[in-house]
């Protein structure tokens, strides 16, 4: 087996992985980045809308500050987030937007003078300030008090990813694409790298690294209908969970985006509503103001998705062969706006839906979109359970999103966390004296090789990988969706337990020399079922409603019993995860309260006064983060 040595190993080459890799390479560390696909094909490239950062240059963002951004983020999370992390994020986001501008991102800029903007379908005039000319502009997104989302038309992910990738080229980051990490190498205390399978040749390769980053994005493909790319199968979370030592945080916190298109599930950006688009029902009636008089279409995503589902349940959805949907109307924004600032939306509608959004309505419905949960890390991005293992971006539960993340906050998180955690990783790597015991490499290699032999020979059973995947999809769609209840969740847990058992007996239906794509699927399914089970079981046990986690049988947000984060471990040999809980936040700079949208009742918590004090150490750390 080929063995590569490196200082820093980044598994995943989307925005978070690349930002960490740039940090490490600029600090002079050897850096290898593994990716399923060439880095620029990572799912970050599909992010359309933008990145939230309180620059306050746009007139509609006038008076914005990291404090306001912090408060929006905490409210958005329904007080489920780690407030120290949310604070680091809000305070350093403006710096990171300027930094990537310095590196080449062509952000849209402020054009001084009078402009016609739209809110809730109605035009209004606003005058951009002359002294802000040429600074980074911002658009509106849901759940925010100010226009704060920095953008490059509706190709923000693409342009920032391209820029970071150019920096990876410049600073000599080694890219091994078409590589799938199959297992972490560790000695029970420290992570030493990973065993990866080459998707060109099918060979196994070992990577030994002083520090290892998991930045593999979300695990949306446990659902049948998702906006996520085909590669978002949770590969990084799976190898962490498989160690039995590293827990997943808040896996039940799953976001459904209001505007997945029907029938393809391809996303159209929240920027459509931010720029003034509205949601209409079967009677072409704009219904959101009835539910959310203040924020309407621009309440947080969990709220809008719930309201849309409620409205369709009243029989006011549009019937189609693909099930009920609603309409997104952006026609009033006009041809120029749609073909420039919403160009990707225009392309998606015309190419995939046969709809011209300049003249026609876009069929949409809430669709699985984002995983707030993931590899649980501390403030510095270090994974619980193994030294030398880090995680950043959607794959991590860092945890600035809690139970609902705001649009524009996750794309910003990738680079903001990438910079902050990248610096912590560089510190760790420079201070570490690793010893790579070859027996651990052999152990990990043997485990992967044995699984492959099991699957190829069928010596454990004759289960079909695609069939198990389809059954997992069906149960997740049916029982672990937007509205949840104990009975359905129990049904899902039971079914997933059965699927987990069957997933250990998978056998290939084909043979193929070298790389067999069926083996790639077969190797993933067991882990995907585990992630699905962590999601379903966490949701079953959490008997409250918070953010995107909505229990019809427990409609209150229960701060008394559930102001906490679920930690799901999967112990060696177990058939079910073990759940533990930790406090949601080390302290509450913003005390638990009302979000100001979404309605609902809260069962309060009497927190002791010291929980509202910001510790000196946190203040010091924040100062350091801004350097």
């Amino acid at each position, binding site marked *: 087996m080929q063995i590569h040595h490196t200082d820093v190993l980044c598994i995943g080459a989307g925005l978070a992985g690349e930002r960490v890799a740039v940090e490490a390479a600029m600090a002079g560390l050897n850096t290898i980045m593994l990716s399923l696909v060439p880095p620029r094909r990572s799912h970050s490239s599909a992010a359309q809308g933008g990145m939230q950062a309180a620059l306050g240059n746009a007139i509609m963002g006038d008076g914005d500050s990291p404090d306001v951004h912090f408060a929006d983020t905490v409210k958005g999370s329904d007080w489920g987030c780690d407030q120290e992390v949310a604070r680091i994020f809000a305070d350093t986001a403006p710096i990171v937007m300027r930094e990537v501008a310095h590196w080449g991102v062509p952000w849209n800029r402020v054009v001084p003078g009078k402009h016609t903007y739209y809110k809730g379908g109605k035009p209004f005039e606003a005058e951009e300030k002359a002294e802000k000319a040429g600074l980074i502009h911002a658009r509106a997104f849901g759940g925010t008090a100010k226009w704060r989302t920095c953008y490059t038309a509706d190709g923000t992910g693409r342009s920032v990813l391209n820029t970071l990738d150019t920096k990876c080229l410049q600073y000599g980051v080694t890219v091994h694409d078409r590589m799938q990490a199959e297992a972490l190498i560790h000695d029970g205390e420290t992570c030493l790298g990973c065993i990866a399978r080459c998707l060109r040749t099918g060979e196994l390769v070992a990577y030994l690294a002083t520090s290892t980053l998991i930045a593999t994005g979300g695990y949306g493909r446990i659902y049948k209908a998702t906006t996520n790319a085909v590669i978002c199968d949770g590969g990084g979370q799976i190898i962490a969970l498989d160690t039995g030592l590293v827990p997943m945080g808040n896996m039940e916190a799953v976001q459904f985006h209001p505007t997945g298109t029907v029938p393809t599930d391809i996303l159209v950006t929240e920027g459509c509503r931010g720029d003034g688009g509205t949601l209409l029902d079967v009677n072409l009636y704009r219904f959101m103001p009835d539910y959310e008089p203040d924020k309407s279409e621009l309440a947080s995503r969990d709220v809008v998705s719930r309201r849309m589902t409620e409205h369709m349940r009243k029989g006011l959805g549009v019937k189609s062969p693909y099930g009920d949907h609603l309409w997104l109307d952006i026609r009033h924004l006009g041809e120029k706006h749609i073909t420039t600032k919403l160009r990707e939306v225009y392309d998606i509608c015309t190419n*995939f839906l046969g709809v011209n959004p300049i003249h026609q309505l876009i069929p949409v419905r809430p669709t699985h979109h984002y995983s707030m949960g993931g590899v649980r890390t501390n403030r510095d991005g270090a994974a619980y359970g193994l030294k030398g293992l880090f995680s950043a971006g959607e794959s991590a539960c860092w945890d600035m999103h809690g139970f609902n993340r705001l649009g524009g906050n996750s794309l910003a998180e990738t680079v903001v966390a990438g910079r902050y955690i990248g610096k912590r990783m560089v510190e760790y790597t420079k201070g570490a004296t690793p010893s790579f015991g070859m027996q651990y490499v052999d152990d990990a290699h043997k485990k992967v090789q044995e699984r492959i032999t099991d699957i190829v020979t069928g010596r454990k059973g004759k289960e079909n990988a695609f069939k198990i995947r389809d059954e997992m999809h069906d149960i997740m769609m049916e029982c672990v969706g937007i509205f949840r209840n104990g009975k359905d969740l129990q049904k899902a847990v039971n079914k997933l337990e059965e699927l987990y058992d069957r997933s250990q007996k998978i056998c290939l239906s084909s043979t193929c*020399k070298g790389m067999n794509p069926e083996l790639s699927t077969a190797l993933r399914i067991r882990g995907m079922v585990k992630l699905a089970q962590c999601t379903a079981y966490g949701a079953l046990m959490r008997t409250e409603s918070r953010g995107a986690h909505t229990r019809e049988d427990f409609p209150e947000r229960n701060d008394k019993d559930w102001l906490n984060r679920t930690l799901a471990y999967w112990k060696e040999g177990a058939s079910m995860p073990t759940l533990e809980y930790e406090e949601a936040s080390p302290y509450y700079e913003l005390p638990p309260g009302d979000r100001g949208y979404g309605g609902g009742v809260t069962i309060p918590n009497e927190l002791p006064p010291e929980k509202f004090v910001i510790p000196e150490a946190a203040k010091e750390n924040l100062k350091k983060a801004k350097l």
Partner: protein
Amino acid sequence: MNRMLTLNIFRYNPLDPDSTPRMQTFTVQEYDSMTLFIALTQIRDEKDPTLKVDFCCRAGICGSCAMVINGRPGLACHTQTKDLPAEITLHPLPFFQLLGDLSVDTGSWFRKTGLQIEAWCHSDDKAFDPTAEEMRMDNDLANEIFELDRCIECGCCMAACGTARMRTDFLGAVSIMRVARFYLDPRDKRSEDDYYEVIGNDQGVFGCMGLLACEDVCPKGIPLQDQLGIMRRMMAMHSVKGVLPRPLIETIKKKGCCHAHAQS
């Protein structure tokens, strides 16, 4: 009524000494708004899981699934079956190394050429000051740079390029467009001399035969033709800079690209 589609798919596994290149036929029942992504996924899930084909975003954004569709390079996810005849022939992109069936290695080629043309903003990264305001930029210029940053590196342009067919070291319209992106960008401090070094040769702008299929097949509609023209003129002027009067060079060198109106 929906048709029965016949897909003739190129099959070859370079890792298997017994494999020989051949065409294999599959039939698929068409349904409404079916794309080639859906048809090929169905074949892989239900008929032949060994079929090698790359998909990622399935929304025309990532550039993974470029292939030759009835003789023309395009994105499979972007192609609706209703726009094709009932018989569909699929080949892998030429020019790039074949990994198997419809899968080719675009990634290595784009990385290699990216290094060759130094496709990054040449500025002083260490000079970044976290407390300072960002450098101001005209919004039209930002839009113009983004227009060239929309490339998804799918490889369709290279697959359709007549020059690339004859000389494998041709950098192609995509690389010239990438250089143009940095030439436009005031943050990149490279001079005309530096750019000439990179693309002022037969591998670069002077190799292009001007057939322009690159622009015809670009799924993102990027103005490759204009960029080729602008860069070629800039390079040509540069190569005769000792001969032509300086004011003439200054007047025409940035015509047609954004610097012209940014500076006027």
